[in-house]
């Protein structure tokens, strides 16, 4: 499996991995949490969220289990695998380098 195809997709993957790393969480909560943490700037559409979750799962970075929520409904909870932790570290590093570099260009140009 190669690298994320574009910046947007790669970024979404990174955001999902980071969110999931906090503990088992379902798709709805992931979308909500990304929205809250970014002060409502980032809104993840379910049209891209669920395919991304399934892709990450197929790559073995996250795993899932069905459990009852507090309200008693069955939901699919995702959590990070060991390979996912490594992948997250890699992607965080990449993101830091990229954003740092862009910041430098914006500052100095």
């Amino acid at each position, binding site marked *: 499996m190669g690298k994320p195809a574009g910046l947007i997709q790669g970024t979404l993957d990174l955001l999902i991995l980071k969110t999931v790393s906090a503990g088992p969480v379902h798709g709805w909560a992931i979308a909500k949490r990304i929205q809250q943490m970014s002060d409502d700037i980032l809104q993840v559409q379910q049209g891209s969220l669920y395919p991304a979750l399934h892709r990450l799962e197929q790559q073995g970075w996250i795993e899932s289990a069905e459990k009852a929520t507090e309200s008693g409904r069955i939901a699919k909870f995702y959590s990070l*695998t060991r390979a996912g932790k490594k992948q997250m570290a890699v992607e965080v590093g990449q993101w830091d380098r990229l954003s740092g570099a862009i910041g430098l260009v914006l500052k100095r140009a």
Partner: protein
Amino acid sequence: MLWLTKLNLRLRALFQRRALDRQLNRELAFHLAEQTAEYLAQGMSPSEAELAARRLFGPVAALHEQCRDERRTRWLEDLMQDAQFALRSFAKSPAFTLVAVLTLALGIGANTAFFSAAYGIMFRPLPFPSPDRLIDLDDGIAGVGSVTALRALARAVDWAGYYPASELNLQLGGESSKITATAVTSNLLRVLQVAPARGRWFTAGEENFGQHRYAVLSDRAWRERFAEDPAILGQTITLNEEPFEIIGIMPANFAFPSANTELWVPIHMDARSLGYMWGDNDLWPIGRLREGMSLAAAQGELRPVIDRIRPMFPWRMPDAWGTGAQAVLHSKALVKDVQPKLFALSAASLLLLLIACGNVANLLLARAMRREREFAMRQALGAHWSRLIRQLLTENLVLVLIGGAVGLAVAAAILRALPLLLPKDTPRLAEIGPDPALVLAAVASMLLTVILFSVAPMLLLLRQRRESVAGRAVTASTRASRLSLALFGVELALATTLLIGAGLMGRTLWQLANVDSGIRAASLVAARISVGPSRCGKAEHCWATLENINRTLLENPVVRRVNWADNAPLDQNLSAVAVEIEDHPKPPGAPAYVLWRTEATPGYFPALGIRLRSGRLFTAADRPGAAPVIIISQATAQRFWPNESAIGKRIRTLSELQWRTVVGVVSDVAQYSLTGFPSWVDGVEYFSLAQKLPIDAGNIELTVFLESSQPQAPVTWQASLHQRFPDIVISHVKSLAAIRTDSVSNQRSTALLLGLFAVLGLLLGIAGVYGVISHRAQQRTREMGIRLALGASANQVVGMVLQETLLVSFLGAATGVLAAFGLSRFLSSLLFGVTARDVTTLTICPLVLLTAALLAAAVPAQRASRTDPALTLREE
């Protein structure tokens, strides 16, 4: 272990698809429910909230599809779906499937079998280390004296010597039997770079007479004759009445010079025995290039070395002796004789495969045309053309896989039968078998086949697409139908070529069957009798033994007459000697005359039906003490003394001192082969057996000719002989007719196999013609109906269909004849009495094919002419 996790995920995606889909549904429903709950919390009414949530969510089915695509097993699911569909549709048309699979299996099977046989015999590396450094002498020198001298003098090559084929009498527990044994020089294993599995090999000193009584067993002989007794080493066995100590056992895969060699003994050099050292050509050289030496270096030193060996002979050798010697790779020399035949058979199997491919392609084309509507519909419903092609490919792949699997079984069966079909002296026959090359060949031919099959329907499909865009009226099926007509033309061309090859071989067999061998004694029984030195050590003694055997045989009421010779005609022994002929001196340097020699008793000539032309036959008086006499054949007399009587002329064998006087001239006989003598044989001579016994004190092998009133019952005389002389070995009991039949086994097996190919090719071709023409006739039903309605007669309609067949078949057959013209030169070395451009064969074979094609087309043509015009017009 990430890959393990991934594999697990993919397998779940494949095999728990339903469960995963249900889970996905629940997941998306949960999201929708949470969204609805949120809207409810914002104060919307329940129905508003649900509607708003759904609107936000978008089409569920599309999202569902997107998530499923992330499982990356879509292509496999499609493939399996297509394969299932293909299997279902094949099951629905069993006739098509059966014909296609059988055709494919036949083509692939025959091809795989013959190519792996040809590879196994011709190209597979010999089972020795660095086999490309092993060399032979072509047209070279042979014999114990010459080869050991060559070994001593050559610098570039380590030369060893071996007897290509010989048998010894093995006495074991009071029973005598033949054992296939070969005498070799002590350095043979160094040359072949093989070591014994147990015990040791011969030392250099054990090549000398008196020290030579050691033997090494083959693995098979050790198992079959000595029950794998590990204590056999050091024990003594009796070979030709002499004790030999067993000192070693070879590994199981060691098969030199042939797979049935059971025992090796050292040569026994004895300077006093001129006959053994210099008198025959039985020890053949094989060598290994020394470190850093090339084939060119080996060839370069041959001339000077042979020039030094020539004067070592106890008599003067012609200056040309050995000058034609060529150092050649052993692997090449080994298969020189079978090469043309294997090439011919491989080419024939390739033609068969192509015909089979053409047939299946035609079948698939016809099928595709029948499904034209289905595909058009699917395209109209939005199926992408690449998806349709993928489905066609899958279908073909499934078909070829089934055909290939059956084909492998066919190949295995052919390979098992091949050793029985090919002549026994084919080299490396025992090594032929299924090997990786076989599988490789099968895969390659299958791949080629699937590409071939897919291309035609694919072209059709693409064209259909283009034309539907261009809005042209020409339907794809008309085009495809023309394509299948062309394919059938090509098939017929290939079948014609095959048929001509088989025809030429058939004519060869026919000619061979009608060769007059000059022998008039088909029911005479010949048997090889091997007598040890205790009975044949001295000439007088030996003669008495033969007379005793005669008496014993004649005691049997069935046996009428008994005669002897040193070998039987046409049994493929070489029996040529260099001679000097009176009145015909050779200039110095020219090769000596070579005569074919047979040593025979007086009754030999009448027994075989050889007629006296002038002078006299041998009599009982032509004994050792009497004047040495000789009889020559009519052709020999004609050649050397065309204008005078040959009687009284003298001939001398180069290895002897005395001249022999010609006392008789007899009719010509095919002693060597039905196709004549080799070009280097100048004539035929006969010695009186009594004057030739024995050459050396040792084992003697003779052929006895029995005239019996019941040639079909040979057992009784063998039993009585065995009872009286238990140490004498009887072998090769055969009628002269059987010997004659066996002598053309090479041509017969080629003709048989080629004939088989041709018949199969013809059948496949005919089936193809029938299929194509009936399909075309079916397509033109409407046109035929209109023609009939407008007043055409049934005969005219038949004529129309046949005209097309005739045109295509004629073009095909003509192309086939041209191809056969080019290919048949590969056969020419196997042909006899007919040239590769034989007009009869080149005319009759295409005619057979044309007739067969017309007959095959006549059935659908008849059917077309019976079209009911009313029915057709109503359909309009």
